[in-house]
């Protein structure tokens, strides 16, 4: 299977990602407390009841961390799928029609590449109404450009191939081309998808750290932010169960995704 072809590092990484996804799926069932339950005693140290203690409002930190898995991975995968799809579709459109359509799409993509994505995303997220869907849309609509560029350059190389010329000859439409070239494009799509998932988590965490998006959603970024705002964070080891867990979760996720697409040769 695919797993067998992978190197050891990549196997470990995919295992970690798999664990992350599993946690995200079952998080609702293993969460000891509901995320809007703030009735616990505030600022408790870790115990059997509260594995990571409680925050200054009485939320169970472990539950918040688990909820972070759910939201971050959901956002990561949805925006990964959507932005990759948009990028790939646009690259096909642009290669098939060429001319003015190709030019227009390329110019838009170039324009978006010039401005750092995170700035546009923040800009739009601020003005949109603060919901998770808008955050996802903002991430999707401004991060498809790299996928598009990669896929397009790859496709352009295939346009001179015989099978493509043949399809054109028998007056095949864009879907026929797509069918012919999909397998050639497969590695690019997978790589960009993982890359996009990776980026989406980073963007989401950054956005929620800056307080953009739904202010009440409990993501890793929010958790990091509220830990940083807690004035006595550096006393009594609070930092170990308040700030470090979400930071480590984000870090490991991003690291695993990145290692997965590294070319080791």
């Amino acid at each position, binding site marked *: 299977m695919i797993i067998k072809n992978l190197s050891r590092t990549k196997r470990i990484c995919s295992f970690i990602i798999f664990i992350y996804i599993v946690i995200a799926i079952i998080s609702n069932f293993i969460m000891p407390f509901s995320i*809007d339950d*703030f009735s616990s005693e505030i600022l408790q140290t870790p115990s059997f009841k509260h594995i990571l203690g409680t925050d*200054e*409002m*009485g939320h169970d930190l472990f539950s918040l961390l688990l909820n972070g898995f759910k939201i971050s991975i959901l956002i990561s995968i949805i925006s990964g799928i959507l932005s990759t799809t948009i990028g790939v579709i646009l690259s096909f459109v642009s290669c098939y029609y060429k001319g003015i359509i190709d030019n227009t799409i390329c110019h838009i993509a170039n324009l978006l590449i010039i401005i750092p994505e995170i700035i546009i995303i923040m800009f739009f997220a601020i003005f949109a109404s603060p919901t998770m869907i808008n955050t996802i849309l903002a991430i999707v609509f401004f991060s498809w450009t790299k996928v598009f560029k990669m896929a397009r350059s790859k496709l352009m190389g295939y346009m001179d191939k015989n099978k493509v010329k043949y399809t054109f000859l028998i007056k095949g439409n864009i879907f026929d081309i797509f069918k012919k070239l999909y397998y050639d494009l497969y590695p690019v799509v997978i790589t960009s998808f993982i890359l996009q998932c990776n980026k989406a988590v980073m963007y989401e965490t950054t956005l929620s750290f800056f307080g953009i998006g739904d*202010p009440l959603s409990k993501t890793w970024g929010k958790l990091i932010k509220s830990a940083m*705002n807690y004035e006595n964070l550096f006393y009594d080891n609070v930092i170990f169960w308040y700030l470090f867990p979400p930071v480590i979760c984000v870090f490991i996720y991003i690291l695993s995704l990145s290692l997965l697409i590294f070319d080791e040769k």
Partner: protein
Amino acid sequence: MKKFISLIIILLLSLSLAACDTAGQTEKTEQPMTSEQGLKKTAREERVLRMDGDNLGYPSVFTSSPKGRGYLLVSFTFDTLVWKDETGVIPLIAKDWSISDDNKTYTFNLNENIKFTDGTPLTAEDVKFSFDYLKEHPYQWVSVAPVEQVTAVDEKTVQIVLNEVYVPFVTDIAGNVPIMPKHIWENVTEPEKFNTKEAIVGSGPLILESYDKESGVYIYNANKDYFMGEVQIDKLIMSSVKNTKEALVADEIDMASNVKYGEAMKLKEENSKYKVIEGPGLWVGRLYFNFGIEELNIKEVRQAMYYAINRDELVQKALKGAAEVGNPGHIHPTSEWYSSDIKNYDYDTETAIELLTSVGITDTNENGIVEYNGKDLSYEFIVPEEQVPLAELITKYLGDIGIKLEVKAMDQNTIASLIKEGKFTLAFNGHGSFGGDPVLLKGFVSEETAASTPQVTTQGGQNWHNEEFNTIFNQQIVELDREKRYELVGKLQNIISDELPTLTLYYKKSISAYNPEVFDGWFFTKDGVSLAVPTIHNKLIFVRGQWNK
């Protein structure tokens, strides 16, 4: 060659060291000669007090920040006719004053021997000039609109005539108009740009030595001839500090006024070396309603919301105990104007739901949200970014009675301006200067009144309107008999507690920590310094405090 160069360097270094040394010495030996008290002074080390503070602009009257703390910096160098300490109003430039029978004419007798720091004596002319000048150049901190005329009767007597009776005149106007030297300011036409050395010549206890525009470091020297008595410190350094508590413990500052409540509590627990004092924050956190929305005009809806909010838990969890629970009558419970004859709203979800049902607001389509005339009670709730925990609690509380909120976090200034323009549905915000005279209830009066107060309470769009409230408000503002006025103000609070034009959620506490081994005697001023500025920066401390180092 190498040796030669290093020799030269060493030589140069030692020379420059020697030069420094001699320079220092000459300064030291020269000082006692210039100053008469020099002999006494050399006996003690220079007393430098270091405090934290924000960058609030050049501390002259018109160039400092319009915030309360900006005015306090001005007050270090500019005295006023009267001032306040922990007990209330005390004389400052004026040694005493009398009020005419019709309560419109105030006669102030000024202290003898007050001098501006440039040596010119302060006379009645300067007082008259200052009032006239502020009339001509409106000053954001205090309005002199109620003043009709100021006359200098003789060198040391000033008579101030008001247009109308204005009860809080002494505290709010005489206690805030900075007395500026006429000979300097009479030629100043653009006071907003006046920031030379001359602009800070006043008669206060401190003299500005330097202000760094970029870093916001203020260095003040003591005014050796201050008429109230000897200034206990020689130098005051105020600079912005990143982590106030750490700076205090590391002995970088002696007074931490920006310390956070939780930090100060921790400090009190851990380290008995430092003193922590708490005072009323004179800052109120309120839930604003937009009265352009039909159902929010129904009294019962607002009452139900208030019943549904657990204010005790709110203070405990969202504010970490750094506040006092809000009073339905709006006035701070420790204020002398507070009335206990008000309607109370103890946390009770049942009553809240009953109230909503009584006006026909129920969940008929069973989507978990109650409806009014078929429309869901679902609102956007705007809160300042740092108040998200509070928003979370309120969303939960109101969710329990079927009102859905969608929270949007913004920065403080945006919220203030949205409220001012009336472009909001529900908003949380707060404002300071919440103490002292009950003119602060003016924010609820729907028409023009004679009262002057900082425009911090304004709310745009359609407002709450209550004829009875307006009438009583205008009665009390001219009522001179304290008892009667208290009664009227009590009635106002009763109306507020019943009508709830705003939901008073909490009052901030103010906290400061300091090292008493350096300088002790800090106090909180009654009703706040100047116009209810809830900090510890009362200039009297520089005269009254004890230097312990």
